[in-house]
C-alpha cells in the first residue's frame, strides 16, 4: 500500500507539472491580456508600454522559465486583473466552493435511498415513478432551475434570499441552500439510477438467494449484503461528482453571486489572467487527485479482495 501511495504521488506531481506547462502555452497562444486591460481606443504606444511594464515583451521561453520556477516555489504571482496575489484570491474562494459542493453532494446523496427504494420492486409502480423522476431531474438545465427557484422560493414565497453570500458561519446557511438545490438534481438523479441499477444487478446473484434461504429478512439482505456490494459503483460515482464540484459550479455560482472558484476561473480565462488560472487549476488538480486517492482507499475497505501492490 505504501509503495502504491508513493507511486500515485509521483504520478500526480508529473501530471500537475505537465498540466501547468500546457496551460501556460495555451493561455499565451489565446491572446494578449494587456489588450483586455485597457480601452480599445488607446494608442499602440500605450499598449506597448504596459506590455513592457508587466514583462509581456520578454521572450516566451524566458517567461515560461520564470513561471515554472515561481510555481514550484508555490508562488503564482499577482493577478494581472485584480493586482492581488493569485494564491490569496484562490484560497479565499476555495472554502466557499467546498461548502457549496459538500451541501450539494449531501442533497444528491438522497438519490441512494431513492434508488434503493426503486430496486426493491423492479418494474413496480414505485420503480417506474422513480425512473421518471430521476430522468426528469437529470434533464433539467441548471441555469433554468436556478432562475425558477429564485422566482418561486425567493420572490413569490420569500422563503430564502434570492442570491448572495454571507460567510460560512451560522448567518450564511440560508444563502447556500438555493444554489445547492439548483445544483443537486443531476447528482440526485444519477445517484438514484446507479444505485437502482447496481442493486438490481446484485439482487440477481447467488449470495442473495443464499441469504434469503438462510431466513434473513429482506431489509437485512438489502442493506447489509446487497448495498455493500453495490457500493463500489456508487462510491465511484460520488467521488467523481465531488471532484466535479471542486472545479466550481460556474453557472450556478454566477447566477447566485456565490464567490466560488468556478466564477473566478471563468472570469480569469476571459481576461487571460494567467496567474489566477494557474492557481485555480493547480488547486483543483490537487483536490481531484486527493479525492481519487480517497476513493481508491475506500474500495479496499468496501472489498478486502482489492489490494494495491
Amino acid at each position, binding site marked *: 500500500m505504501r509503495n502504491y501511495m508513493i507511486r500515485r504521488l509521483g504520478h500526480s506531481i508529473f501530471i500537475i507539472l505537465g498540466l501547468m506547462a500546457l496551460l501556460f502555452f495555451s493561455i499565451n497562444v*489565446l*491572446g*494578449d491580456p494587456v*489588450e*483586455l*486591460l*485597457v*480601452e*480599445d*481606443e*488607446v*494608442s*499602440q*504606444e*500605450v*499598449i*506597448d*508600454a*504596459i506590455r*513592457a*511594464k508587466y514583462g509581456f515583451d520578454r521572450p516566451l521561453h524566458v517567461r515560461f522559465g520564470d513561471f515554472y520556477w515561481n510555481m514550484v516555489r508555490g508562488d503564482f504571482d*499577482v493577478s494581472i*486583473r*485584480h*493586482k*492581488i*496575489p493569485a494564491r490569496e*484570491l484562490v484560497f*479565499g*474562494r476555495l472554502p466557499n466552493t467546498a461548502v457549496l459542493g459538500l451541501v450539494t453532494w449531501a442533497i444528491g446523496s438522497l438519490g441512494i435511498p431513492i434508488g434503493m427504494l426503486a430496486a426493491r420492486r423492479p418494474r413496480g*409502480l414505485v420503480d*417506474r*415513478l422513480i425512473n*421518471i423522476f430521476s430522468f*426528469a431531474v437529470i434533464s433539467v438545465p441548471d441555469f433554468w432551475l436556478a*432562475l*425558477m427557484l*429564485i*422566482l*418561486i422560493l*425567493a*420572490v*413569490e414565497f*420569500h422563503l430564502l*434570499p*434570492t*442570491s*448572495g*453570500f454571507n460567510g460560512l458561519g451560522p448567518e450564511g446557511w440560508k444563502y447556500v441552500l438555493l444554489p445547492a438545490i439548483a445544483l443537486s438534481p443531476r447528482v440526485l438523479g444519477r445517484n438514484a439510477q446507479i444505485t437502482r441499477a447496481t442493486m438490481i444487478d446484485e439482487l440477481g446473484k447467488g449470495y442473495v438467494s443464499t441469504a434469503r434461504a438462510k431466513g434473513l429478512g429482506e431489509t437485512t439482505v438489502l442493506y447489509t449484503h446487497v448495498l455493500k456490494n453495490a457500493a463500489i459503483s456508487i462510491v465511484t460515482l460520488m467521488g467523481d461528482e465531488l471532484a466535479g464540484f471542486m472545479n466550481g459550479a460556474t453557472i450556478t455560482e*454566477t*447566477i*447566485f*453571486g456565490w*464567490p466560488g472558484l468556478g*466564477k*473566478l476561473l471563468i*472570469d480569469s480565462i*476571459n*481576461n*487571460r489572467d494567467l496567474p489566477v488560472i494557474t492557481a485555480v487549476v493547480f488547486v483543483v488538480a490537487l483536490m481531484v487527485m486527493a479525492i481519487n486517492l480517497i476513493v481508491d482507499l475506500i474500495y479496499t475497505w468496501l472489498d478486502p479482495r482489492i489490494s494495491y501492490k
Partner: protein
Amino acid sequence: MKSSSKLRITQWMIGLVALVILVTVACGGAAAPAAPVAPAATKASAAAAAPAATAAPQVMEKAKSARDTATVVTEAEPASVGAWSEGCSAEIHSIGCQDFVSDYITWIDDRNDFEVVLLSGFESYEQMAPDRWRFKLRPGVKFHNGEPWNAEAAKFGIDYNADPTNASASITWTGPIKPAEVVDEFTMDVVCGAPCPIYPRTGIFTDFQAPKWFQAASEADRSRMTNAFGPYRIIDYQPGIHTKFEAYPDYLPNENFFSQAAVIPFITHVYRSEATVRAAMVATGEADWVADIGFEEAEKVPKWVSGTTAEVYTLILDTVFHPELKKQKVRLALAHAIDCQGLLDSLFQGRIKCWGAISMEGTVGITPENSAVREYNPELSRQLLKEAGYDPVNSIDVNTRPGSNIRGLEIMEATVTYWRDVGVTSELNSWGDLAKAREVQTSGCGRFYKLDETFKDKLDCDQRDPPGPYFTSSHAYEVATSNEILDQQRFNNSRMNCSNRSSRVCRRDLQEQAKAANAVPAGPERRKAMEAMLDIAYEEVFFIPFMQVEYVYGLSEDMEWQPYYAPRLRGNTMSFTK
C-alpha cells in the same frame, strides 16, 4: 398488457401534470401587478439646475435618510476598487472605485443643458493659453485618509493620469497632457500636449488620490482601496462578495447637484450577472437600485427608469482596407438595405428609436440632418451596388460578440440577412471570446506602426496593403461606442484618425480638418466645425448606427433617483422618500 397500458397512461398523466405546473410557474408565476413606471428620461428638471462653475465653500446641511443602507447591484464585478488600477474602468460596475469615492475635476450637468460643472475639489478655472488651463483649488478639502488637498496633490493626480503607462481611462479623453505646474498652494496649471480648448469638458474622468498614501502603498493595497475625496469612502472590500461604503463625514459639498452631501449613510455594492436575478433582488427588497435589467424585467420591479448610456450601437465599416467598403456607394447601399426601425420595433416593442449618428443626441455637432436615419429602400440599395460595381466575390462580413449589447446578436443576424437580400455576400462572425473580438476591433492603421515603421504618422494607410500575417480586415464590426464628453472631438480622434487602432477611416484631408476642428474654442464656431465633421461622416457613411443604447434601472419603492445621461451613479444623488 392491460395493466401495462394503464401504467403508461398514468405515466403520461403524471408527465403532463408536471409539464403544466412547470409552464405555469415559468410563465405566470412572478408577474406582479403593473409597476408604477417612471418616465424614461435622462435630461429634465431644469428647475434644479446648478450653477456651472464656481462652488460655494459652505457645508450644506445634511438631510436625514429614512433608511441607513442602500444596496446597489451591477452586472459585473469590478476587478479592483483602486481608482487608478486597470481593473477600474469607465463602466457602470466601476462605481465603487469611481463615482462613489472620487470627485473628478469636472462633471457634465445633464440637468442643465450638459453644462460643465466643477466638483468639490475646485473653485474655478480659466484658460490662460490655447494649451494651458489654470485651476483654483478649494481649500479645506481632505482626502479620505486625512491628507490635505492642495496643488501638489492635484499635480500628482494630473501627472499620474497623464502617464500612458498607467493605462488611465482619463488620457483617452483628455489627449496628451504635460506635467502639471504648481502656481501656489491652491493654484495649478494644466498644460496640454496640443491646444485643448475643451479641456474642462474632458476632465470628467480625471481623478485624484492621496499622494503620500498612494506612493507608500503596495500594488495590492492600491487595488483594494481608493483614498480620494468623493462623497463616499470604502469601508469594506471583499472580492467576489461586496464593497461597502460610508458617507464621507468630511466631504465638502458645493451648490452643484452632483456635489451635494450624501444623504444615505451607507451603500453596499454587489454584483449579479443575470438581469432576472437583479430584478428579483429589487422585487424582494434585497436591493434598492439595480442596473441594466432590460425592458423584459422592468414590469417585475416596484419602479423603473431608463436612461441613455452615452453609447451608440453601431457598425464600424472598414473603409481603409476592405475592397468593397472603400466605395462610398457600397456603404450607402448597405445602410439603405437595413430596415432599422422595423427591426428595433420587433426587438424592443417600439420602445427604442433608430438613430443615425455615431454620437448621442446633445453632442456638439449633431444636427437633425447628420443624425437622420437612412430610409429602408432595398431597390435603391441594389441600384447603388450596381453603380458601384460591387463584386459578390468580396464578402462583407459582420463581426460581433455575443452579449456585447442587449439584442446585439439578433440585430447583427438580421443585418446579414438584409444585406444578403440585396445581393451582398455576407457572413456573421460571432466571437465568443473578448480577446478575439478585440483583435478585430483594434486592427486599424494605428496598430501597424510597430510592425512596419513606415506606417507611423503616415496618412497613406488606405493607399497600400497592411503588413504581414497580423492583418485581417475587420469588415463591419459592431460596437456600442461611447462619447461621454458629448463633443465630436472624441470620435475625430478615435474613429476617424489614421493613427488610432480603432479607426477604420484614414483620409489625409479629414485628418487635417479634424485637427483644426479640435482646436476651435467652445462656442458657435466649434459647433460649426464639429457639425462639418459629422456631416462628412454621415455623407461618407463611415458608420451604420442603429440606436442610442439605453439602460433600464430597477428601483425600490422608496428609492429616489433619476438616471444620468451616461451609465454613472453618484451615490450622493440617491435618497429614500420614506
